[in-house]
């Protein structure tokens, strides 16, 4: 078996709570009834393996647009491996990421109330394929923090990068966010702290790569492994 063929429900404490009192949208959009248990069948343990035929990849450099001038801000190099629950690399899998610019503004029409400036040299989105080791890498700009408006409890989102990950089955599909180590705003973020388990929260925070371990000297390096659901029912190595 080359791909995971066994998918279990998530381990609850390592996943976020669904309703967050001060996050109004979570109260308006979460179902009021608990989800129904269903058997897992072939549809759930399969998924698109050749997505690059639909989704254009090779967009690894967010630091400039069409070879134009470099975006404002601190250059960062974000890399890591995509693994399944057996620790096996997930190869040739699409990784999408998006983020705010250095001032904390998204290039998106929904970010219209934010007074922070746009950066014409920064789109803030990229897409790539994982390699034979399951590795991905992006060159980008350190995102700024931004305030969440129109809430009873206003708060600052700490610098973060959004990830959209596919894996090898429909049940391995994952949307998540990556945080930066040592950011004071991490401690007060309502979304990061919606994950009850401390180890779970730690899995969302990237690790700084010491400069001497990085091949390039122009960007601050961060290592961030991503783990999607799915393992193999037959133990490997037998």
């Amino acid at each position, binding site marked *: 078996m080359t*791909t995971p063929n066994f998918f279990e429900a998530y381990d609850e404490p390592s*996943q976020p709570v669904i309703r967050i009192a001060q*996050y109004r949208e979570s109260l308006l959009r979460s179902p009021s009834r608990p989800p129904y248990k*269903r058997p897992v069948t072939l549809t759930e343990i*399969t998924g698109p393996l050749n997505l690059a035929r639909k989704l254009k990849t090779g967009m690894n450099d967010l630091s400039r647009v069409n070879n134009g001038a470099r975006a404002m801000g601190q250059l960062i190099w974000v890399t890591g491996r995509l693994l399944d629950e057996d620790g096996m690399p997930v190869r040739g899998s699409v990784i999408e990421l998006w983020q705010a610019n250095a001032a904390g503004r998204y290039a998106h029409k*929904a970010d219209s109330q934010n007074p922070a400036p746009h950066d014409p040299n920064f789109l803030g989105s990229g897409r790539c394929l994982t390699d034979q080791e399951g590795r991905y890498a992006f060159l980008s700009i350190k995102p700024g923090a931004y305030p969440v408006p129109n809430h009873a409890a206003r708060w600052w989102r700490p610098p973060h990068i959004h990830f959209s990950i596919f894996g090898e*089955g429909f049940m391995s599909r994952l949307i998540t966010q990556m945080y930066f180590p040592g950011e004071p705003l991490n401690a007060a973020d309502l979304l990061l702290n919606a994950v009850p388990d401390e180890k779970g929260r730690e899995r969302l925070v990237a690790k700084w790569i010491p400069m001497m371990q990085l091949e390039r000297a122009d960007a601050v390096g961060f290592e961030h492994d991503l*783990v999607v659901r799915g393992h193999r029912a037959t133990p490997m190595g037998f």
Partner: protein
Amino acid sequence: MVKKRTPTPSHTVGPFFPARFFGEGDYDLTFVDDPAKRAQGQKIYIGGNIYEAERVPRWNCMVEIWQPDAGGCFNHPNDPRHSHADPNFMGWGRRSSDDAGWYDFVTVKPGGYTDPLTGFRRAPHIDVAIMSSGLMRRLVTTLFFPDEPANAEDPVFNAIPEADVRERLILKPAKLEGAPADATAYRLDIVLQGDGETPFFVD
């Protein structure tokens, strides 16, 4: 020795998923990357509104679907019949609900199959995942077709004990503006919360 890992926690997709990530062909499953090479089967169109609480239409929701081809096969090694899968059908699509909360897909009617894991007979169905700001985890459900005798045996359809609730997962034949002329059109509204709430499954 296998090193056991714990999956990375899920988070909301938020409101800022890049518009440029929604490609023109992503909501049309009847071809993969060459519009001249079409998937086999009966072309269908599925559309509906997404509502949050109080029946407020929800724009900017990310909807993804996954389904077998017209012959009930997946182009995936976990399917013992994968060598029979239609090479011009990927089975995956993605769409953002528009300013009025409308989502839609063009695809082919999926075939049913006998599940190799459980032995259950699966009726024709389409798996759906909804991602939105406010949803820390995605919501998953499955759509079924009207007048399918196989629904009565389907283990996922029947995982919902209340007949009136599982009925909400059955596509309704409808005349829809966005439907291609050669497609059979169905409507299914998705209610995230409140009266007529769509049943969702444990992910």
